[in-house]
C-alpha cells in the first residue's frame, strides 16, 4: 500500500505548513505543499490527494476576520469541488487558522450538507491572543478517525477561537449529535467554559468540530505543535516517571489516524 498523498495548503500568511507537513510525513503520509494560487489555477489538482490539510497561521493577515479572506477565495473557486472531495472519501484537517477557514467556508460543521456559515470562531473573551497548553477530551463524535475518550494536551495559540453557533440550539446540537469532537476540560476532566482551562470562553467548551460525514476535522489547539515527545511541556518529568521518553507527543494521534484511515480506504 502506498503512502496516502496529503495536500498541505500554502497561502499568504499561513505559517504552520512546515510542521504540518513533517507531522504527516512522520505518520507515514506523503505530504506536499500546494500554494493556493496553484490550486486556484488548477482546481482538479485537489483530486490527486487523499487528505487536504489547511494549516494554522494568519491567512492574508486575518485583518478583517480570521480566515475570512482565504475562505472567501476558496469558496468562490473550489466550493462544490471541496464537497465532492469529501463526498468521494477525502479527509480534511483544519488546524487553528485552518479551522477558522473551514468554518467560514461552511465545510464545518456542515450539518445540512451545504456550504453555509453555521458557527463562528470569534474573539476570545480575554480580548487578546493567547498561547497556552490546554487539556482536551475527545468526545464520542461522528468523526470517522479520531478515537473518543482520549485526554490530550495540546497548545492553543489564538486570539479568535471562541466557537459560537448561530443559536443556542445549534450549539447544543453540536454536542448532542456528535459534531463536537473535542472539548476543553478542567482538572477533574469535566468540559469547562472557564478561563484559563478554556482559553477562549467557547460555550460548552467546544474545541473541535467534524462535519456530518465525519471526514472533516477542525481543531483550535495545535496537534502540529505537540506530535513529538519533546513538544510536550513537561516531557522531562514524564520521562523521569516512566523511565523513558514516550515515542510520540499527544498530537500525533491525529496524523496517525488520518493517514491510517486514508490508507485503509485506498
Amino acid at each position, binding site marked *: 500500500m502506498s503512502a496516502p498523498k496529503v495536500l498541505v495548503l*500554502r497561502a*499568504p*500568511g499561513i*505559517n*504552520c505548513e*512546515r*510542521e504540518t507537513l*513533517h*507531522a504527516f510525513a*512522520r505518520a507515514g503520509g506523503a505530504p506536499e505543499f500546494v*500554494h493556493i*494560487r496553484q490550486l486556484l489555477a488548477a482546481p482538479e489538482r485537489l483530486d490527486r490527494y487523499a487528505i487536504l490539510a489547511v494549516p*494554522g*497561521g*494568519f491567512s*492574508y*493577515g*486575518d*485583518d*478583517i*476576520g480570521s480566515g*475570512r*479572506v482565504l475562505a*472567501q*477565495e476558496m469558496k*468562490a473557486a473550489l466550493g462544490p469541488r471541496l464537497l465532492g472531495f469529501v463526498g468521494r472519501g477525502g479527509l480534511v484537517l483544519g488546524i487553528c487558522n485552518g479551522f477558522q477557514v473551514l468554518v467560514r467556508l461552511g465545510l464545518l460543521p456542515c450539518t445540512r450538507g451545504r456550504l453555509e456559515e*453555521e458557527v*463562528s470562531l*470569534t*474573539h*476570545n*473573551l*480575554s*480580548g*487578546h*491572543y*493567547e*498561547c*497556552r*497548553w490546554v487539556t482536551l477530551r475527545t468526545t464520542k463524535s461522528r468523526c470517522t478517525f479520531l478515537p473518543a475518550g482520549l485526554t490530550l494536551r495540546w497548545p492553543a*495559540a489564538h486570539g479568535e477561537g471562541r466557537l*459560537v*453557533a*448561530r443559536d443556542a440550539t445549534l450549539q447544543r446540537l453540536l454536542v448532542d449529535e456528535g459534531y463536537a469532537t473535542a472539548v476543553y476540560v478542567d482538572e477533574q476532566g469535566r468540559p469547562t467554559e472557564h*478561563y*484559563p482551562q478554556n482559553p477562549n*470562553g467557547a460555550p460548552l467548551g467546544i474545541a473541535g468540530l467534524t462535519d456530518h460525514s465525519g471526514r472533516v476535522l477542525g481543531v483550535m489547539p*495545535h496537534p*502540529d*505543535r505537540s*506530535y*513529538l515527545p*519533546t*513538544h510536550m*511541556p*513537561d516531557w*522531562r*518529568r514524564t520521562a*523521569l516517571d516512566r523511565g523513558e*521518553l514516550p515515542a510520540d507527543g499527544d498530537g500525533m494521534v491525529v496524523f496517525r489516524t488520518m493517514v491510517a484511515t486514508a490508507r485503509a480506504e485506498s
Partner: protein
Amino acid sequence: MQAWRIDVVARPDQPDPIGDAALRSLRSAGLDGVTRVRSRRGYLLGGELAAAQVQTFAGAVLCDPVVEAFAVHAPGDTPPPPAAGSHAVVVVPRPGVTDPVAHSVQKALGDLQLPLVATGTYRVFDVAGTVAPARLLQAARKALANDVVQEVQLDALPTGLPGDPPPPDLAVREVDLAALDAAGLERLSRDGGLALDGTEMAAIQAHFRALGRAPTRLELETLAQTWSEHCKHKTLTGNVRCDGRTIQNLLKSTIAHVTRTLDRDFCVSVFTDNAGVIRFDDEDSVCIKVETHNRPSAIEPFGGAGTGVGGVIRDVLGTGLGARPIASTDVFCLAPPDLPADRVPPGCLHPLTVLKGVVAGVRDYGNPMGIPTVNGSVHFDELFVGNPLVYVGNVGMLPTARARKQPRAGDAIVALGGRTGRDGIHGATFSSLELHTESETLSSGAVQIGDPITERKVMDAVLRCADEDLFSAITDCGAGGFSSAIGEMAEGLGAEVELRHAPLKYRGLAPWEIWISEAQERMVLAVPPDRLPRLLQVCAEEACEATVLGAFTATGRLVVHYAGTRHADLDLRFLHDGLPVQTREAKWTPPRHAEPQLEPEADLAGALLAVLADPGVCSKEWIVRQYDHEVQAGSAGKPLCGVANDGPADAAVLAPKLGSWRGIVLANGLNPRYSRIDPAAMAECALDEAMRNLVAAGGDPDYTAILDNYCWGSTKDPQALGELVRATDALCALALTYRTPFVSGKDSLHNEFRVAGSPGAPDRVIRIPGCILVTAMSVIPDVRRTLTSDCKRAGSRLVLVGVTKDELGGSVYWKTKGALGARAPRVDHALGRDVLHGVHRAIAAGCVLAAHDLSEGGLGVAAAEMALGGRLGARIDLAAVPREGGVDRPEQILFSESASRILLEVAADRLADLQANLHQVPFAVVGEVTPAPELVFHRDGRLLAQVGLDAVERAWKRPLDLDGTLAPEAGR
C-alpha cells in the same frame, strides 16, 4: 472624496471582548462614570461602487454573519447623532499611516471581482455613562488610541476618504553650503534633522567645494543617513582618550579583538553581515542578531516594538544569501508600571501604557510572522521613564554554503515587498538625537506601523528564491531606507538607480523622500540578469511585489535619477570613508555610594515575599502567554515550565530541524541596576548571567557565541563614555576567560530625555543607566539532554554551586528597602568559568534533575521558583551555604546576588557523580526537596522562615497578573 461607510457590530446578544477591554482601559484611566462600551469596526469604500455591490461585499466579507450585524451608509449620508447619554469615540488612522486592514479589504474586493476602489478603516467605541466629553476625549487619546498615528474624534464619524495629495516637488534642489560658516553649517544640520556635527558638515562642505558644485538635497540626505550614529556607530568605531591612553577604534580594539583572539572554529561569519553566523551541523549554520528600537517605542510603543521585530527579522532574512528566521527574543527596560502619574514628565507615556503597547507590538508582529518569541526579560528602573529600551532579537538558519554574498556589476537592483510611503522619514537620524518634551509631536514622521503579512510574503518569496539560487546579494531596508541599503551594497562597485520605478503607497513623494523613507517590509536584492525572470516569477507566485530599480555598476559612483533627471552622483569612497574620525574624551570617576546601615531583618519570610513581588522578579506570564512561543514546532524548552506551566525557564531550547534532536539554547543577561554603582559589575554580570542561564538549561559553555548590545546616555559626556569604556573592558576580559566570541553587536547611544524647565527652573536631563544586554547562543548535540528549573522529586537534594559573597549592592532586597548600596557583584573570572563547565559536565552526565541560576533576589528567589514550578517544597539550611567570610546575616545569605552560582536538584544517590563532575568547584548540599508545599529556611535546625507555596505564588504572580488568572484570595 465621498465614500460608503459600513459599520460592523457584535449582535446585541453576543459578548464584545474588544468593547469590554476598552471599558477596562477607560476605567483604569480614571473615568469611573463609564458604565458600558460597545465597539464597532468601520470600513470606508470608494463611492464608485453600486449599492448592491456594497451590500453583498459587506455581508460576505466584512461581517461575521454568525455573531455580527452590519449597517451600510450611502456616500453623503449624515451619520446619526449618538444616543442620549452616550458618546462615540472615533479612531481613524492618520493620513499616510500604514493601514494593513484597508489593504486586506482591497484584496477581498479583487477576489469578488469588484472594482478596486479606495478603502479605509476606522474604529468606534460607543461609550455610555456619565463622563465629561473633554475628559473622555483626553483619556481616549491615551487609552484607546495613540495620538501620534491615529486621530481621535468625538461623535464625528468619517464620511470620506482622503483625496489625492498635492503633486510632489520633482526639481533637483541644490543646498548651497559654500558660503556657510561653522555656526551656519550646524544650524543647517539641526534645522534639517540631519544629526551631523560641525566637523562632519565641514567635511561635506570641503568635498563639494573641491568638486566646484553644491550638493543636492538628495545627496546631503544620503550622507546624513549613511553617516548617522545609527548606521556608522561612529562613537564606538571612533577614538577614545581615557585616563591618558588613546584607544583607536574602540569597537575593533575591544569587542572584535576578543573574537579575533579566540578564533573559535565554529564562527562562520562575524561582524561583516546583518547577523553573526556560527556553525550548527555539517550542512547548516545558525545566525543571530539583536537590535534596539528605543526611540520609536518611546513615542509609539505598539508601532515601535512591532517594526523593531519586523526589522530584526529582515536582518536575519538578509543574512548570507537568505536565512530562515526561527526564533525571536525581546527584552524591555521600563520605568516601574506602578509609577505615580505625577512622576511621569510631560512628553512621556506612562510606563504601564508603554509596557502594554510594546507587548502588543511584539505580539501583533511576531505571531503573524509565524516566528516564535521564545525568550526575554523585563527590567524596571525609573531612569527609563523618558527612554524605554526595547531590545528585539532574531535567530535564523541557513546552509553554510550560502553564508556569504557578493553583488556583481551588472546585477539588477530589485526592491521586494512593501511599497514606499512617507512613513519613517529621518528614523536613522532621529535615533541619534536626544529625546525631549516636544519629540512626541515633532518626530511623528519617524514612527511607523508594521504590516506583518507583507513581510511574511517577502520571507516566503526570499526563501524560495534563495533555494533556487536566484540572487547574489541581499540586504534589508532598515534605517536610511534605499539610500543605506543600496549605498552599502554598492560599496566597492557602483550603482545606478531610477526612483520613478519604486512602487509608492500614494502619490506626492519627492525623490529624496522615496530615497530615504524607512517604510517597512522591504528588501533589496542583487539579481544576475539571467536569473531575473525566474525571480520575478517566484515573487509573483508568492504575491510579493518585486521591482527593478536599476543596476549595480563598476563606476564607483552612486547615481540616482528620477524620471531620467539626475538627483545624485556621489563618490562611493567619500560616502563610505569620508566620515571624519571622532576622538572623544572619557573619564570614569567612581560614584560615591555607601552600604546602608540596616537593622538585622526581623521578618525574613516577609522580606522574601517582598522580593518576589518586585516587578523585575515577578512572573511575566501575562507577557509570555501573548506571544506565540510554539509555532514552527521547534520548542523543546519553553519560557514557562513545571507541572502547571508557570515556573520560569532560564533559557529557550529549540530543535530547529524537524526530525533531528540537535539543538540551540538561547539566553539573555542584563542588570541595569548594578550600573548605578559600577558599570564593570553590570557588564560582567550580564555575561555571567547569560551563561548561567544557558548552562542551567543544558547549553554547552564551550560551544557558545555571544552578542553585545549597548544602550547608553550621551557619550559626549566624558563620565558617561568613561562608564562605557570601563564596562567594555570588564566585559571583554571575562569573555576572553569564558572563550565566548562576540559574533554581532549593536549600540544605541544618546538615551537621554530633556524635561523642559520653567522660568527659574532649568531643564532637567534624565539619563538611563548604561546597559549592556548580553545574548548567548549555544549549539548542543541533543535536546533530550536539557533541563528545566522546576523541582522534580521530593526527597532529592538541593545543591548550591558557587560562593556567596557580601554583595547586596544593587540587589532587589535593598531595593525593597529603598536602598542601593555600594558593593555590587563582581565576577571571579576563573571561578565563574569553572562553575559553568562543572555544572555543564554534571548535566551532560545526567546527574542533575533541575537547575536554576541565582540572579535577582539571590538564593531565596531561586529556591522559591524551583519549588513553585514543581509544586513541591524546599527545606534549606543557610549554615550550609558556601560563602566568604563576613557573610553571616541570613538576609545576606538569602538575597546576595553574587555571580557564578547555580542551584541544582540532585537525586541523593547521584551526589558522588555530581562531585566527580564538578571537580574543584565549591559546592554544598544546602537542603532537600520536600513533599509539603512550603519553603523552610533554617540555620542548623533553628527555624528562620517558613512560607507556604500559596503565598509565594500570590506574591510572585500578583504584580503583573493583568488578566486576573489568580483565583480570588480565600475569604474574599
